[in-house]
């Protein structure tokens, strides 16, 4: 009985290992097949195109992909900082591990994906995506990842032409209520400091004068 249980457990471990080996990658470098072609609406894949600006929380873009060689089970979409925007920013560093890759993670929202894995079995497709509200105002590319039915990654692609990166601006961070409130307190604190000083000097002088009499 014990021998059988041990055999079964060993077989189970071997099966897991086999599944890992045949089903897909955890690292970008393991995905050696052809890249998925990725494009974004309004951003032409030609040199010299002007970057398109989107607004976090207000704009949407259409992500298109094609060139998958194997029918996926799911597609996931990431928003990745352009390479120049990772310089001197260790929290945006590229990591080969797909799930840990900080270059494609938005820290303000702690979002690992722009679009969480959704079901798609076609070799090409498109999806309209709303830019999340708290996306940092900088430049990005879009990355599409294909996953098999075990959840492992099998193929990926980036909209990598630097002239055609996406520029995202943020919403109005300083509404009038904030400006008014902080502006009032700014002015009030200066006036208050002066008033307290004058009052205290007068009070101390009075006490000293009373003693001297």
């Amino acid at each position, binding site marked *: 009985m014990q021998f059988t249980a041990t055999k079964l457990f060993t077989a189970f471990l071997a099966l897991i290992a086999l599944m890992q080996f045949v089903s897909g990658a955890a690292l970008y470098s393991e995905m050696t097949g052809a890249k998925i072609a990725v494009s974004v609406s309004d951003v032409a894949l030609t040199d010299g195109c002007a970057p398109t600006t989107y607004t976090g929380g207000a704009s949407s873009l259409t992500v298109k992909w094609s060139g998958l060689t194997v029918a996926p089970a799911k597609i996931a979409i990431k928003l990745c900082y352009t390479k120049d*925007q990772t*310089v*001197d*920013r*260790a*929290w945006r560093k590229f990591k080969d591990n797909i799930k*840990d890759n900080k270059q494609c993670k*938005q*820290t*303000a*929202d*702690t979002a690992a994906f722009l679009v969480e894995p959704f079901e798609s079995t076609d070799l090409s497709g498109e999806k309209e995506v709303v830019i999340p*509200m*708290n996306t*940092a*105002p*900088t430049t990005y590319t879009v990355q599409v990842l294909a996953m098999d039915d075990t959840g492992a990654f099998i193929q990926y692609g980036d909209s990598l032409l630097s002239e055609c990166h996406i520029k995202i601006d*943020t*919403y109005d*961070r*300083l*509404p009038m209520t*904030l*400006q008014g*409130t*902080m*502006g009032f*307190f*700014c002015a009030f*604190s*200066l006036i*208050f*400091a002066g008033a*307290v*000083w004058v009052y*205290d000097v007068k009070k*101390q*002088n009075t*006490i*000293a004068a009373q*003693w*001297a009499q």
Partner: protein
Amino acid sequence: MAPKEFEPPVHTIPVDSENKAMSLNIFSFQRPHHMSFHMSWIGFFISFVSTFAAAPMVPVIREDLNMTKPDLGNAALASITGTIICRVLMGTFVDLVGPRIGLGMILLVTAPFCFAMPFVSTASGFLICRLGIGLGLATFVACQFWMSVMFNGKCVGIANATAAGWGNLGGGVTQFVMPLVYAGMLKATEERAFTAWRWAYIVPGLAHLLGGMGVMFLGQDLPDGNYKLMHTSGALEKKSAFQVNMIGMKNYRMWCMVATYGFCFGVELTMNNIVASYLYDQFDVDLAIAGVLASCYGLMNLFARSVGGLASDWASRRFGMRGRLWCLWLWQTIEGVMCIFMALAKDDLATTIAMMVLFSICVQASEGASYGIVPYITRRALGVASGFIGAGGNAGSTICIALFFTSDSIETYDGIMYMGITIIAVTLLVIPIHFPMWGSMFLGPNDSTEEDYYIKNDFSAEEIKQGLAAPVQKFCNNAHMERPPSKRTGSESA
């Protein structure tokens, strides 16, 4: 007509010949000693909360303003460097005008920077606001000076340490309070993170206003009255700014302590700036959790600094000033060792936190032990000495951040390692601190030298003839307690 003599008020607690309290009761609000104690630590606490309010929100702020690591490093540097000059000036200010006004007014004039922070949209603006808010750290100098004039040698170590420790607590409290405030503002702004962190700054700003007001109206400079009355009555010498600065700067012991304090308090400031984002980036923990874990560092101030002060006072009772010096050297050397251990634990969160807590305890105990020694370096220029040494803390942090935590080429854990090695090396400067009448770590006292000689050496013969040294005579008598036990005469007051 004979000049009117100043009659000091009667105090309701046991006091010595200088009317300084002979014990500390943290539950008492007795005026003026204990009320001033509470006002000083609360004021200092508020300045710490505001100075480090940005740190736990950095992962959001750096995205909003699209900052780089050098930008963040420079802003962190600005928050603790600007106050170097401010602390030096505060030292002179408290000697001339008094700690109550010094502490109260610095809180009030730095409040506008808290309210201005929401308006920043660039890295430069962020730096300027952090610099302005950081000026509030000069409250430390006023706090320590205040405790040194309110509490006598029997308890000055624990009074200084507890007030400063509870003040430093602000650096830990802010690490978990500001994320909570931010979370509340996030809900209120319908998940607009880049607006929420700006609203969060209203909390430290209002704290500055309330704290400043409390200090001004509830505190009192000296046991017998405020400075204006003391100057008018002649009970307190009216000092010259240039003169007191010269007295302080000519004392090499002050400079030794400037360096050593730079690597205990300076290290604490450095860690307050970097630890939350280090935990977030190294271990991928959630922002709020990183804040809570990071707060463990500063929260040790609740008791650890007092432990250092208590240890210093105990060592003084057993061995005199030499005990205080050994106490400081031991705590600070162990601090360096713990810092290295924390760096080595970079792959395991639990071990990192455990080492961080031990490291923090030693940092704060070192700070407490330091200010058990400072009141004795110079009596006449106590404010200046407190100011320079306090500024040394900030200078130490500036050096640490600039050398180890600004360049992207040095990993943060390596920076922490290098910092630990530097701590151990700089702490060796405790060894040459020698008081002729009390000795040093390795040298005994000079039998023929008394406290009067050392303490009154800050006065010229002419000034002594004019009676300007008379107010410090009681301090000289009380300072006999710092002699080795075999040399105490028993004539020290209580």
